[in-house]
């Protein structure tokens, strides 16, 4: 299993590097984005709370991804489809981003917002995610914006009380339903996953009969037929895994 992960990781980091160069050359919009971020990008310069701002326990990065039909499905295109929106370190900085982004319910097409701790990529391969899993809640249309806001406010405010375990959260806008999920580091830690589940119920005000699924990222790799949301969430990574021996 470790080998599998390692192989994936190597694969992907290779793709990633190549990708950043390629996309900067052939994708004008992306190039602009990369330049605009320039030296103030979260990757290059530490993001810190401003004076008199309220610091968060962790810095977080917003990502956005959108499936682009008609392009070859590969890990490369996954990497190209996911964009960093920005990193913040304080409550005020969070609102600066959030207030200037559309609500998930107003996104068009097959899109995701990801909010992950700075330094953790919203991908299974990331070291923080490779032994992890996620709680998944499927929402009927119309609920995503409110649930996403409640979910990320709970995460930023450290409401889950599971130490370092939380990696990030995702909202996936799909055609028939929307999906929110929260990722944690250690899928085998049942006390943690139970606490996350209970906190989710509380902060989202979920009805008692709400179906909540926990899916380990390893299971998502091993059991393609039961992936459910994984294909729409990460269609391109999915392809990568199919090819892994």
């Amino acid at each position, binding site marked *: 299993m470790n080998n599998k992960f390692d192989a994936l990781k190597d694969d992907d980091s290779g793709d990633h590097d190549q990708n950043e160069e390629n996309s900067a050359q052939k994708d004008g919009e992306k190039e602009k984005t990369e330049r605009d971020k320039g030296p103030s990008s979260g990757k290059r310069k530490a993001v810190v709370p401003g004076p008199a701002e309220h610091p968060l326990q962790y810095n977080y990065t917003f990502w956005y991804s959108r499936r682009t039909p008609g392009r070859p499905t590969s890990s490369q295109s996954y990497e190209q489809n996911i964009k960093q929106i920005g990193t913040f370190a304080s409550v005020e900085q969070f609102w600066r981003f959030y207030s200037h982004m559309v609500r998930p319910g107003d996104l068009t097409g*097959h899109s995701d917002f990801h909010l992950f701790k700075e330094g953790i990529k919203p991908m299974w391969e990331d070291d923080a995610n490779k032994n992890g899993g996620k709680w998944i809640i499927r929402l009927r249309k119309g609920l995503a914006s409110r649930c996403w806001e409640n979910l990320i406010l709970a995460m930023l405010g450290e409401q889950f009380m599971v130490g370092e375990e939380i990696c990030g959260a995702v909202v996936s806008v799909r055609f028939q339903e929307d999906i929110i999920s929260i990722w944690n580091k250690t899928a085998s830690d049942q006390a943690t996953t139970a606490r996350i589940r209970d906190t989710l119920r509380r902060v989202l005000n979920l009805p008692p009969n709400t179906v909540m699924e926990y899916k380990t990222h390893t299971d998502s790799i091993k059991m393609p037929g039961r992936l*459910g949301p994984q294909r729409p969430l990460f269609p391109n990574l999915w392809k990568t895994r199919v090819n892994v021996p």
Partner: protein
Amino acid sequence: MSGGSSCSQTPSRAIPATRRVVLGDGVQLPPGDYSTTPGGTLFSTTPGGTRIIYDRKFLMECRNSPVAKTPPRDLPTIPGVTSPASEEPPMEARQSHPRNSPENKPTGAEESQFEMDI
């Protein structure tokens, strides 16, 4: 259905809003009275070590601070995401890939293609 009800319910949660305050060397905390530390409530002995905890109500209040209303300097322009969706056609045109029309019009066929098994 219950769009507003959750907002009116959540503030009743027991976890208090807190913020972390950096205290210089030599600053004395009032012994036994953490509620009057300079920055407000301070948790120093939670099981996982000090955590900066905010409840939803407090976070929502911060939304109204002037600094929170300024867009970040380095906010990338992603039409339909970080800027009005009406700019989407120009954005698609800027990209060298002529794939905007299928993208903008999710068809019935596409829906079934990505329908998720439960």
